[in-house]
Each structure stands twice: as structure tokens, then as C-alpha cells.
């Protein structure tokens, strides 16, 4: 097997130029690419394309909150950094803190987690619920798109060969209630079997906002604004009457049945119902456990 070229730029500008000239595949933490291309102990992984190691680009590091509450997360931010940052959203922290093993969380980056578009990736699910955007940069400039639009399907994204993910931008959020669950094969260090985030903003007894997204259940994170709209704008008191239609729509329309074995469909339904019931029961603001 031929050895591929490897580039190790020191600056973003340099990296973007290499990316444009060669289309080399970016490698950040390595936790996905090194495994996917592994050839075993003592052997260089069998990469098929030239590799662009971007692990040390300072421009892609750091997490900051802007004045309006927007949070910008550098693409090289690790799961650990996201989990421990004072400004990241609790749903994203949840997903980051339950991702893989501790050591993996110190290597795996948010840019990689989105860029790989693995159905088992943990971070896209809350990011899509939070309407997060991904910032793509090339030597020709910058463009932004919703994470939901960026990830097209398993292992396929809208990134161009000359672009790098530089950051993820999360708009300000207002939720009174949130819910997060990850069901893995074991209690830690586990690939997801199913993840679910739900969030609601209840003001004066009215559902001002309601969102739900589910991961690991199909080729891509599931979210439907149309189904969410079944609840939005209604009084909390109306939820008991509305929830049946909502749950039916979520579990049959949103989730392609073939992609969703019975357990995932039923458990998703039970969790969403539980979340809605908690709202109806006047659960105090905050996290619904």
C-alpha cells in the first residue's frame, strides 16, 4: 500500500491553501480516522488520501460566548473542553460527557464529530436541536449552514474539498425544561444505541417552543419542525389531548420505521411522553430527569 502525503500546517491560512491545492483530508483528533484506516500494530494506517493534520491550528481552538449569548466553539474543541466549559449548553455538555472513553474525550473534537457524519456520532444530535450552525472556511471565504443541512446522510456532508470546519456556532437559547438521555451498550465508554434530547420553553402556561431530536436511531439525526409545531403555541393544559398525535407523528413520520427497530421506537415514544407529562405535571424549570 502506497504511503500518502501528510501535511502539518502551522496556521489556518497555510492549512486552507493546502486544502485547496491538494484536497487533503483533514485530521483533527484522529479518533475516527486512525481507527477507520487502521492496519494493526506497528503499521502506518492505510489512508487512501493525503492527510492534513490540523490538530495544532490555534485559530480553531477555544470556546467563547458573544455578547448576545451566541456561543462559538472552535472546531478543535475536544469533548472534554465542551463538557467543562462554563458557556456551552447543558444538552451539548451531556452529549460530550457521555461520548466514548475519557481518553477519547480528550482527543475527539467537535469538528471531527460533525465532519465524520457517523450515525453514531454523539454531538450532532443536540447541535441540531439547538439550531447550531457550522462555519466552513476556504481561501475564498467563509460560509455557514445549519448542522442539520450540513450532514446529508451517513458519512456524507456538504463540505467542499477546499473547506475546513472552523467553528460551530450556537445561537442563544431559551428553554425552561430540558431532557437528555443516551442509551449505550453499557453505562460508560459506550457507543450510542439511542440518544434523545428534548427541550421546551413554557411561558405563562403556553408552549412557546418545543424541540426534540434523536440520534443513533437511523442514518441521520431525526428532528421535525413540522411535528414540533403540533405542540408549539398551545397551552400546557392542552398537551394531554395533543400528545397522542404528536407522539404518533414523531414515531412514525419522523422516524423511518425500517431504520428504527421496535425498541428504539418504543423507548423514544416513552421518553417523549414522559417529558410532555412532566411539563403537564408542572415540573419545576430545569432538567427533567
Amino acid at each position, binding site marked *: *500500500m502506497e504511503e500518502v502525503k501528510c501535511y502539518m500546517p502551522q496556521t489556518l491560512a497555510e492549512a486552507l491553501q493546502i486544502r485547496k491545492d491538494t484536497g487533503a483530508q483533514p485530521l483533527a483528533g484522529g479518533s475516527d480516522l486512525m481507527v477507520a484506516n487502521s492496519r494493526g500494530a506497528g*503499521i502506518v494506517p492505510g489512508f487512501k488520501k493525503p492527510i492534513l493534520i490540523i490538530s495544532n491550528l490555534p485559530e480553531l481552538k477555544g470556546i467563547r460566548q458573544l455578547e448576545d449569548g451566541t456561543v462559538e466553539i472552535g472546531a478543535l474543541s475536544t469533548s472534554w473542553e465542551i463538557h467543562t466549559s462554563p458557556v456551552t449548553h447543558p444538552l451539548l455538555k451531556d452529549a460530550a460527557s457521555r461520548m466514548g472513553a475519557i481518553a477519547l474525550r480528550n482527543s475527539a473534537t467537535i469538528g471531527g464529530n460533525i465532519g465524520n457524519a457517523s450515525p453514531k456520532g454523539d454531538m450532532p444530535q443536540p447541535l441540531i436541536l439547538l439550531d447550531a450552525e457550522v462555519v466552513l472556511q476556504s481561501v475564498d471565504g467563509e460560509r455557514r449552514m445549519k448542522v442539520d443541512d450540513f450532514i446529508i446522510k451517513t458519512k456524507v456532508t456538504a463540505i467542499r474539498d477546499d473547506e475546513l470546519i472552523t467553528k460551530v456556532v450556537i445561537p442563544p437559547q431559551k428553554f425552561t425544561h430540558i431532557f437528555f*438521555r443516551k442509551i449505550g451498550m453499557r*453505562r460508560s*465508554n459506550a457507543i450510542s444505541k439511542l440518544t434523545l434530547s428534548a427541550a421546551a420553553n413554557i411561558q405563562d402556561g403556553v408552549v412557546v417552543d418545543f424541540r426534540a431530536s434523536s440520534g443513533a436511531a437511523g442514518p441521520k439525526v431525526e428532528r421535525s419542525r413540522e411535528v414540533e409545531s403540533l405542540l408549539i403555541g398551545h397551552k400546557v393544559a392542552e398537551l394531554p389531548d395533543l400528545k397522542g398525535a404528536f407522539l404518533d407523528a414523531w414515531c412514525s413520520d419522523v422516524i423511518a420505521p425500517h431504520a428504527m*427497530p421496535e425498541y428504539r421506537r418504543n423507548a423514544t415514544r*416513552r421518553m417523549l411522553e414522559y417529558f410532555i407529562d412532566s411539563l403537564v405535571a408542572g415540573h419545576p424549570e430545569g432538567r427533567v430527569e
Partner: protein
Amino acid sequence: MPATKIGDKVIRVDAIEKARGEATYVCDMTLPDMQYAYMVRSTVPRGTIDAIHLPEMPEGYYFISAKDIPAQGKNELWMIMKDWRCFAEDYVLYVGETIGLVVGPDRATLKDLRDQIKIDYTEQTPAVTIDDGINCVGGPMFPEKNSNVMCELFCEKGRPMEEVFAEADEIFEETLTTPYQEHAHLETNSAIATMEDGKFVFYASAQCPFYIRKSIAGLLDIPYEDIIIRQCTTGGAFGGKEHFPDVLCGALLIAENKIRKPIKMVFDREEDTQFSVKRHPSKCVYKTAVKNGEIIGTEGHIYYNCGAYLSSSFVVLQRGVFHANGVYTIPNTYLKGEGIGTNTFPTCAFRGFGAPQTLFCFETHLTHLAHHLGVDPLEFKMRYLAKKGDETTTNGHIIEDVKLPEMIDVITKESDYWNKIKEYKPGCGRGIGVALYNHGGAFTGNGEQAIIKAHARLTKTGDKVEIFVGSTEMGQGFRTSLRKICAATLGISIDNIEYKNPDTSKVVDSGPTAASRSTMIVGRLVERAALEMKERWNEGDFTTEVEYEHPEGYPWDQATFRGDAYLGYGWGAVIVEVEVDKLTNEVKTLGVWSSHEIGKAIDELIVHGQINGGIMQSLGYGSMEKLENKKGYFKQKSMSDYVIPTSMDFPKQFYHIQENPYPWGPYGAKGMGELVFNGASAAYVDAVERALNCEFTSIPIPVEDIEEALKNV
């Protein structure tokens, strides 16, 4: 230095070097001019090999196959039988069967070459499951018998079952199954072959150095003495390195015979997961006759999936059958076992050696019968506890006092079992479950005398004594406990005892490190050798050697499987408490309480570690460890999809050790390494069943399987 006493707390002799990262495992070794080897394996489950197309091999690179076995040698590995071929030729019987090795200096080049080897097969329909095997799917594997049955046995006691069934009020029938389990020792299989002074020398991660020698010598038709096996620090084995190292070393021997340079083979994890031996999947069909609410007889048909070669399967199956009525005395029993051949990777030894399958199935069967009769399962089971003098299913007797009532008392108190079963209504989301179990120590019947004939030797030099036995340390602590036995018997410090990893050219054959026999049998041999040495202590430097002697008066007939199958059992009782999340079916284990009767603990800290680890493996087996074979291919390939428990999955365990000195063990000790695996999976399932008011007839029970079971509530 003060003399070591058996009750002293000692530091394991291997702990510091291992924790410092200084212990040498095979993967850590480098020899001058070392070559590497990778296996070329079958990619189809059953078929003929029509052609092997090799790429051009660069100088110094070799493809080694059956063709390289010299004329006087035979292409067979000798385990129990000689059916396992070192290299498949003409036909393949399972995915992963060794066809050849690629050997050479550069690993990347070797993998390139391996990828370029093209093998033409004519595929045939494989038999994969036990039912496939029973039905001879794809044609019988043994045409001369017109069947796939590799091995079989039965034992019966009391009256004929037709008579018992005719008399019963009802017959409670169930089919229960248990899955594959992967050993998942953290160190993968590995070995290095080299030459020294004209002899073939192997460094191996292995449990049984003498097994390897015996198994592979026939490949070249050379005397055993021309092969030297040196065991390296072994990173976990659990039965997975009992016979399987023969498969690596056999292939390496043929390569070494040709190439004559050091050759190293270390499996990657994906190879180790897919292409190594596993625990036998089982299917147990029990019919239990009930009259006036009491059991009057049980018939069990037990099927084990043996894969394509026998390896140790017949012995595994025997142990399964001998444990198929658990710790209970039932007046009339008929137990039949069949080892079924399939086109899957051969199954072999795994901690418990056939006992965990039948113990899980029978224990769960009795639990379900108790549900059916409306009695608390523990109360029900306690009516049938075996006691000293009871006739066993093999028409032998329970020779020792059975302390289960005392042990049950300890764990029910510690766990508050009797209150909790009242508090937790069936289906309330919380449940507490229990399992009782045992494990026959050492080889079956008189096998220690008839087959193994173990020896142990001690050599005294000044005030130092060295132990020479073939028994191995693989993590279980034997290098420490055997020294402790020796030191305490001699009345000297453990620091004055040496016991190195065995080298077959230097030690005597003390038998395999398997069957929970090391402490009980080899420990006793060393104790005897030490007693003799102590008497002669002032004679200067000398050697003592002893051979195993079987106690008189405990007959066993290996032809009919009648008699005293085991001289002593370890006994166990475990309680598990769980809480199930009714939204997601996730099970949280709240507590684990166990009591084990192992005669006497030679070293409590080591025993404690064995208990914790064995119970954890059993909980993994019952809860999460899913290894599925689809059409001959294992679906799980790595440590991320074949999951074993982490530190977060189960809570700290309560443990209790029940003393009951065993007359033929050192200081009263019996075997315990396997016993501790034999019950927790059944207790876990019992607890989940009670929490959800449902029943399971198979393991493991991850969330999606719980969803299935809940449909039937």
C-alpha cells in the same frame, strides 16, 4: 525474614513489576532479526479450496501452508483428538480457519501480500446454529454417522423417566439458551518461535505449556524434548489460552522449521475477537415432573455448539451434564448431552468449562417453576439443596458437608432479601434475585490419576527453595499462592521461594492450568513435596519430587460416566439487586452479595479478586456481552461492539468466604477460579424478571431483548 504463615497478608509477587510496566508479555519482546507472521484465513464458512493464487513473494517473504509440513509429519494438532488441522487444505470448515501464514520482516509488506492472496472456493451451505447442526443443514459434517453429533453422553438416576412422568401432576417444560462469550483477555493471543541449540523454542502467552508441546510435535514428528515452551507473562486467559495457543504455535513451528529465524505473531484485537475460540453456546431443554407441588424428576437434553473441531468440547460437555441439576438433589433424573458440530469457529474452554451454561439454564428453569407454582424461588430451591451423602446424578455421592444454608443465611441478611421480596412487588421496577451454584474441583473422576499424573518438584539451594511445576500465572495469583503454600509448609519466608514462569525444559509437568485444579491439586503436591523437604531440611542441597495420588474409595468409570465425578465441589450463593428504568429498559445494578465455600482461602486478597472478577464476567455474560454469529461470521468484531463491563456498570460487591476445610487440598483449600463465574448471570436475570414481572429464557438481556420480553407480560 520471618516465616510466612498461610493467614498472612502478602503482596503479590508480580504486582509491582506489572504496575511499573516492566513485566514482559510476548508483544513486548524483540529478538534479533525478528520476522513477523500473519495468518491467512478462510473467508467462507464451508467449502472447498479450489485454488490459492499467491502474489510474487519478494525475497525473504514466505507463504507457509500445509505443503510445508514435511512428509513424516501430520497436519493435525493433538488436543483431545487430532481432528483440528494446523493448516486447512482442500476444504475449509469455518470462517477464520488457518490456511497459511505470511512471514517476513516488514509488517506492512506482509499485510499487503496477505491482501493480494486470492483463494477460490466453492461454497457450501454452512450449519451455524445448534438447530442447524441437529438438522444437518448443508449435509452432515460426519457422513459416516450421518450426523453432526461430535460427542455425547448421558447419565441417569432413580426410576425411568416414563414412569416418573406418568405419575406426575404436570410436566413443566422449557427450552433455555445461552450465547457465545468471548474471553476478551486484555492481552490478545501471541507467540514467538525461534531456534536455540537445534531446538524449537516458543515464547507464548499460554495457560498450558505442556499441552502445546504435545499438540504440535506430531507436525514435524519430533520428540517432545525438541520443543521448548517458555511461558511469558500472560495477560489474562480464562480458558482462551488453554488449547488455542496450539493453533498459533503449530503454524509457527512449520514456519520456523523452514525459515529458522525468530518469528513473532501477535493477534490484533479484531482477529482475536473473530478468530479465536469462544464459550460454547448452549440449548437446554428441561422437563420437570411435579407432583403435589414438589419436583419428582427432571429430564434434561443439553446441546452445546462445538464449532468445527472437537478441541476440548467433549470434556466441556461432560462438565455441563454433570452440573445440569445444579446444587439440588432430585430423586429421578435423566440428563443427556450432545456436542453439535457446526461451521463456526471451534468453541473451547472458558472459565466454568461447560458448567455455567447448564447452571444458568437449570437455575432459571427452577425460578420459572417457582413462579409457576407461586412460591418464592429461593424458598422453593432451598427444599432441594444437596447435602452430604446424597446421590449425585452420576450415581456417586456428595462427599463433603454442604454449607449452603449457612451461606444463604449470610447473604440474605446482608442484602435484606426477605424484606425486599415483600417490599418489591413484581413489576415495580426494582427486583432482587438469587442463584445457587457449585463447581466440581479438578479433572472429572479419577482423571487426575488416569490422565494427568501431575508431578511437582522442589529444589533447595542453601536457604532458598525453587518450585518447578508447569502451572502458570495468568493473573489468578498462582505464582503468589503456590509460594505461600510452599513457604508456610517449610516454615520459611515467602521471599526465599522462587517460582518462575515455566519453561518445559526445566520444570516437571504438573498438568494444565485449568479446571480450578492448580491450588487444589498442584498446591497439594507442593505441600507434600515441602513436607518431605522440611523433614530433610538439614541434609544440604537436594530435590524432592512427588506425584499425584488419588484417594482410595471413590470409584469412577469414565466409560459409563458413573461414580464420584468430583471429590469436592466449591459452592456459591449470590444475590443481585437491580432497578430498571421503565422508559429505556436500562438496568442499574444496586447491589451484589456473594458467599463462596472454597474449603479454605490460601490468600484472602487473591480470593477476593477472583470473586469480584468472576462475578463481573458472569454479570457481563448475563447482561451485555452479545456475540452473534450470522451465516458463519461473527457480527461483533472489536471491543467497541463486543462490550465487557466497565468500572461504572456494577457496584462494589459484598463478599463472604465460607470455610469448610477439604481433606485432600493444601491447608484445606479447594478450587475456586471457575466457581465464582457460575451463578451471577442467573441471579441478575432473576432480579430483572422480578423488577419487570417478565421471564427470559436466554441471555444476554440488553435493552432491546427486555423490550421483547415485555411484550409477553
